């Protein structure tokens, strides 16, 4: 594991992430949380929660110590889904919050996500300031009689559910027979409570939260849906199946006949539901996301804004529009933000939107899926030699001069019904290649691209 962990630490605008022990250490946590305590505006405390990873306990202790030392009162939610942490920040009008959890990464990883006032993700400018404080290591620790106090918040879940109940028609949704793969994560907390309090009919698998051995990789993609969830759909005569990552901000789904749906389809599906409801007409997504979203948008006179890959670019793009202009924002990973929830990634809300769509249309998921044309996507990666990237991108652009090029993040080239995207990963030293075509898979284009990228490695 040292081999993977040795270079796993990543400190960037989206926070701090790494394999615990070999990459991410207690010292990083203390310094980064101290920087956050120094960075935040004065306010009513900082909300902290974590996913069930075993290392979350260690990181929580460090985060709490650093925030108290900066004179911040801390409200600890214990193990809590990220959307609930964000909801609590708003509800308590807190100065900000920290979510401890590595979301869709394997159990040995962990990460810190930072939220400012109103639970919004930090803008790039704010994140850069936080990084500067972290690197300078000059923290505003307060004197002995000014230290913060820790408070444990036992019930953050119910107020969060109250907000969901105000937006969605719970009475109309609770009779759906829904199977959920919680993947040993925090979604089980919410869904169990929804069954108990509102009489929902969620059937949970992998619902016991685990600190070390997750039931399977907590990624929200088609392969993971196919693993355990999809085969249960028919035997359990379920109406729909959902899979959540460890901290419940992402979702994937299976149809009632047991077909795993591509993670790429969640965004177009929700766009199809939300665009007609208005008032927002804009869909903010990245250059790697399926062209199906463009097709769905055009059905409802919506408009797709393509930004670089990664949450930070989406956040920055959102801040350049008025909230009522936006229909939704998200990526082809099952991470979706909706204006009704003030633009936080929320897998639970995404699931409820899908169920609402089924109810309002009186249609099953299979039928809804059939209303979309088939798109086939191929994804791959090649190890990179960093200094040759610019030459590679230039060569590819020359090689495909007839398409429409977008260079906000690597190179995306679009033809009618077909596109590819070649970019450098932000999390691993690889070049990612994505290639999509309306209809059958663009195998020939994909193979060509892989070969060309390899020739630069």
């Amino acid at each position: 594991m040292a081999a993977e962990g040795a270079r796993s630490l990543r400190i960037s605008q989206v926070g701090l992430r790494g394999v615990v022990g070999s990459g991410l250490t207690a010292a990083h946590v203390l310094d980064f949380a101290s920087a956050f305590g120094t960075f935040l505006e004065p306010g009513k405390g900082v909300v902290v929660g974590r996913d069930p990873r075993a290392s979350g306990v260690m990181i929580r202790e460090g985060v709490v110590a650093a925030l108290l030392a900066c004179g911040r009162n801390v409200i600890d939610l214990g193990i809590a889904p990220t959307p609930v942490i964000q909801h609590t920040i708003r509800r308590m009008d807190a100065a900000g919050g920290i979510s401890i959890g590595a979301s869709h990464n394997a159990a040995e990883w962990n990460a810190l996500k930072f939220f400012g006032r109103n639970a919004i993700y930090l803008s790039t400018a704010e994140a850069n300031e936080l990084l500067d404080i972290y690197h300078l290591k000059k923290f505003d620790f307060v004197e002995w009689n000014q230290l913060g106090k820790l408070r444990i918040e036992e019930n953050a879940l119910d107020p969060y559910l109250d907000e969901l109940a105000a937006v969605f028609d719970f009475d109309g949704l609770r009779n759906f027979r829904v199977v959920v793969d919680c993947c040993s994560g925090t979604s089980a907390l919410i869904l169990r409570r929804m069954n108990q309090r509102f009489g929902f009919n969620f059937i949970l698998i992998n619902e016991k939260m685990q600190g070390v051995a997750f039931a399977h990789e907590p990624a929200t993609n088609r392969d993971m849906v196919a693993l355990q969830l999809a085969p249960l759909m028919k035997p359990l005569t379920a109406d729909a199946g959902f899979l959540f990552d460890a901290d419940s901000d992402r979702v994937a789904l299976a149809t009632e006949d047991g077909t795993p749906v591509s993670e790429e389809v969640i965004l177009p599906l929700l766009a199809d539901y939300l665009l007609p409801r208005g008032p927002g007409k804009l869909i903010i997504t990245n250059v790697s996301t399926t062209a199906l979203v463009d097709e769905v948008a055009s059905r409802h006179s919506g408009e797709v804004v393509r930004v670089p890959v990664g949450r930070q670019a989406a956040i920055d793009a959102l801040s350049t529009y008025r909230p009522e202009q936006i229909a939704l924002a998200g990526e082809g990973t099952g991470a979706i933000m909706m204006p009704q929830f003030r633009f936080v990634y929320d897998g639970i809300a995404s699931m409820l939107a899908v169920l609402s769509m089924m109810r309002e249309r009186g249609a099953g998921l299979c039928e809804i899926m059939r209303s979309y044309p088939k798109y086939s996507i191929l994804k791959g990666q090649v190890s990179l030699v960093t200094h040759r990237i610019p030459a590679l991108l230039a060569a590819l652009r020359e090689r495909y001069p007839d398409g429409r090029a977008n260079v906000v993040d690597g190179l995306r080239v679009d033809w009618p019904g077909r596109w590819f995207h070649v970019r450098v990963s932000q999390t691993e030293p690889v070049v990612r290649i994505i290639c999509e075509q309306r209809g059958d898979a663009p195998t020939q284009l994909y193979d060509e691209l892989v070969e060309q990228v390899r020739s630069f490695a």
Partner: protein
Amino acid sequence: MPRREHLLKIGVSGIRGVVGEFLTPALACSFAQAFGTYVGGGRVVVGRDTRTSGDMLVHAVSCGLLAAGCEVVKVGILPTPTIQMYVAATHAQGGIAVTASHNPPEYNALKLFNAQGLFFNNYERAELLDLYHQSDFRQATNAEIGRIVTDEQTAPKLHFRKVLAHVDADRIRRRKFRVALDAVNGAGAVTTPGFLRNTLGCDLEAIAIDPTKVFPREAEPKPETLGEIAELVRRGHRDIGFAQDPDGDRLAVIDETGFVLDNDDVLALAVDAALRRLPGDVVVNLTTSSVIDDVARAHGRKVYRTPVGEANVVETMQAVNAVIGGEGSNGGIIFPAVHLCRDSYTGMAFLLDRMAETGEKISTIAARLPKYFRRLGKAAFEHGRLGTLMQNLESRFPSAETDRTDGLKLLLPQGWIHVRASNTEPLLRIAVESKSEVEADKLYQEVLALFAA
């Protein structure tokens, strides 16, 4: 430009400093991770006194211990000796008490204990410090990270039971002593009222027993800071008064007249009580009064002297298998049959037991000790001048027998002089003792004059 004051000390005695600018959570976390690495993982007990920074530092320490692959047992606010006994009794790998003992409230520190609940010896502490500086810590992976468990109830019961095994609790309870307590709003505030009232059946009047409040007096229990409790004893016609420091290891005693007993005499009374029960020798530091020698001699026992510092006394006590020991001036009584640590609860129980046994007032019992006159003081010195000062002192008393174990101690026919550099401040600590008050004053003035020159 004045030199910036650095109120942080990282050394063989661990880490201590003013919270905020100096003692940061990151330092405490790293030190705890070094400790967790040194003890090799396993269960580590973490407790604290009532300082405002205690909660913050417990979290930082727990973070470091968990990162080193330890399981953390949080015992909450407890006296240091109680924490030490719990470590030993629960077979933990070690323990950390977050307390700066008698230092002012803006300070905090980590006291580190081994699996037996004892201070590390000097060699171990040097090893730990090297490990800290090298930052070569155990880094647990997700699968290796331990839990946090909480157990705030077991330790005090365990501690009291151990103390009661060495006194006649029934005869103490029968007397229903009228006792006063000043717990300085420290860790003793949580456990001492129950100990005196319920365990020993005393009629208790207590002040400063709110663990959520700041220290109402100087943290070190010494005569000039104990006016309120002394007044309470005198006015309330109490049989005896006790005062603790914030982490409950040190004890000061007030007699029924409201007189604060000399700490060396309190130790002498404890030594006498211990030697009446168990055969063995005594260990005290170089600055402790000769009254200890007199008491030990009366029991036909020997006294060993060590450099100042609890760890030094404990190390020698272990080596010579001593029955009792301590440090006079700072109110530390160490009775290994209970635990090899400073323990104010053993002190309280011993004194009440002697009062119950003899039926005498505490002032009467104390008055029976041989009378010595002590003068304690300090003098600032410039760096580089220490050697000259010590030489001057030695040549002023050429016929004296000398002991250089810790600074310079001169043994004279009329008494003794002990001068040593403080471990914590740029100060010389001066102690003088004689059977004659006139001689004590004379010697003390001579030393001061010598250092002023």
